[in-house]
C-alpha cells in the first residue's frame, strides 16, 4: 500500500476527500431516514417489471448499498434489487 497516499502526504486537498466521503454518507442517511423512499421504489419496480415478468413479490429485496465501480475502483452508492422470477409473461415470447 502506498502509505504516503494513505496518510494524505503533508496536507493539501484533504477537503476533497472529506467532501466525497460526506456526499456518499448523506445518500445513505437521507434514504434511511425516509422509510417511504425504498417502499416507493419497491412499489414502482414491481409495477414496471410485472408487465414483463411474473415475480415473487414476497421475496423481493431492495436496498441501498455501496459498491466498487469497475472502471476505477471508486466506491459509489448503489441501489441493489434482488427480484426472484417465477416465469416470463406470455406476451414477450
Amino acid at each position, binding site marked *: 500500500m502506498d502509505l504516503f497516499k494513505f496518510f494524505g502526504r503533508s*496536507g493539501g*486537498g484533504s*477537503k476533497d476527500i472529506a*467532501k466525497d466521503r*460526506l456526499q456518499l454518507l*448523506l445518500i445513505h*442517511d*437521507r434514504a434511511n*431516514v425516509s422509510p417511504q423512499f425504498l417502499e416507493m421504489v419497491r412499489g414502482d419496480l414491481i409495477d414496471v417489471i410485472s408487465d414483463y415478468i411474473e415475480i415473487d413479490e414476497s421475496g423481493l429485496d431492495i436496498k441501498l448499498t455501496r459498491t466498487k465501480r469497475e472502471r476505477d475502483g471508486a466506491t459509489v452508492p448503489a441501489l441493489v434489487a434482488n427480484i426472484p422470477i417465477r416465469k416470463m409473461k406470455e406476451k414477450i415470447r
Partner: protein
Amino acid sequence: MGEVIVITSGKGGVGKTTTTANIGTGLALEGKSVVLLDADIGLRNLDVVMGLENRIVYDLVDVVEKTCRLKQGLIKDKRFPNLFLMPAAQTKDKSAVTPEQMMELTKNLAEEFEYVLVDSPAGIEQGFKNAIAGASRSIVVTTPEVSAVRDADRIIGLLEANDLKNPQLLINRIKLEMVKRGDMMNIDDIVDILAIDLLGVVPDDEQIVISTNRGEPAIVDDRSLAGQAYRNIVKRILGDNIPFMSLDTDEGLITKIARVFGFVRK
C-alpha cells in the same frame, strides 16, 4: 408577538451556546428586546457564557412547574438595554419538561419579547424536541467537519419534518489558512451539500475563548473577527442584505478576511 428562533446542530460542541449568546446580545444592542432560553436541561452553559451564573435563583423547570412566576425565572443582563436570560435547570434531566410545556413557555415569552432565542442541546432526542417545540424559525450550526455536517443534514431533515421550513445555516470555526490550502471544506462545499440558505460564517477565533473566560460575548469586542461576523449575522436576521464573499479570488489575506466576513462589499 415576537419571533421564536431555535439554535440547533445535532453534533455537540459546535458552537450553539456561543452563537445564542452572541446573536442575542447583538439583537439587544440593535435595540430589540430579547430573551435567551437555555433548553439544555441538566447541562446548562448559557448562563456561564453570558457571565450571569451567580444571579440564578429560579430556572426554566421552576417556571414550567409553576414553582415561580414567569418574570421570576428571568435574569436581566444589566450590561445591555433589553436582554434577559432564562437558565436551564442543572439538577433535573431532559424529561423534566414536555414539548407542550415548552410551546406554552415560548408563547408566553414571545408575548413579552421581540426575540426568543432557544439554545438547543446536542442530539435528536427529547431535549431537541423540547427546544424546537415552540420555534417558528431555526438556525443550524455546523463546523466544517464531515461528522458535524452529516449531523447537520440529519437535523435539517428533522426540522423540516417538524414544519420548521427554511432552516438557516451558520458555519462556525472556519480556518482561512486551512481552507486556502485545501484542507478544510469551504463555504461553497458545505452550502452545496446541505442545500439550505446560509446565514453566516464565523471564523475560528481565540477571542471566543477569551470572551467566554470573561463572560462577555465576543460581539461587543470591536477587534474580534468572530464578533464582526456575529454583527453581520445579526443584521441579516434583522433583514439587512449583507453580502457574502468568495474565498477563491487571489487577493491579500486581510482584504480576503474582510470579504469573507462581510466588512467590504464586492
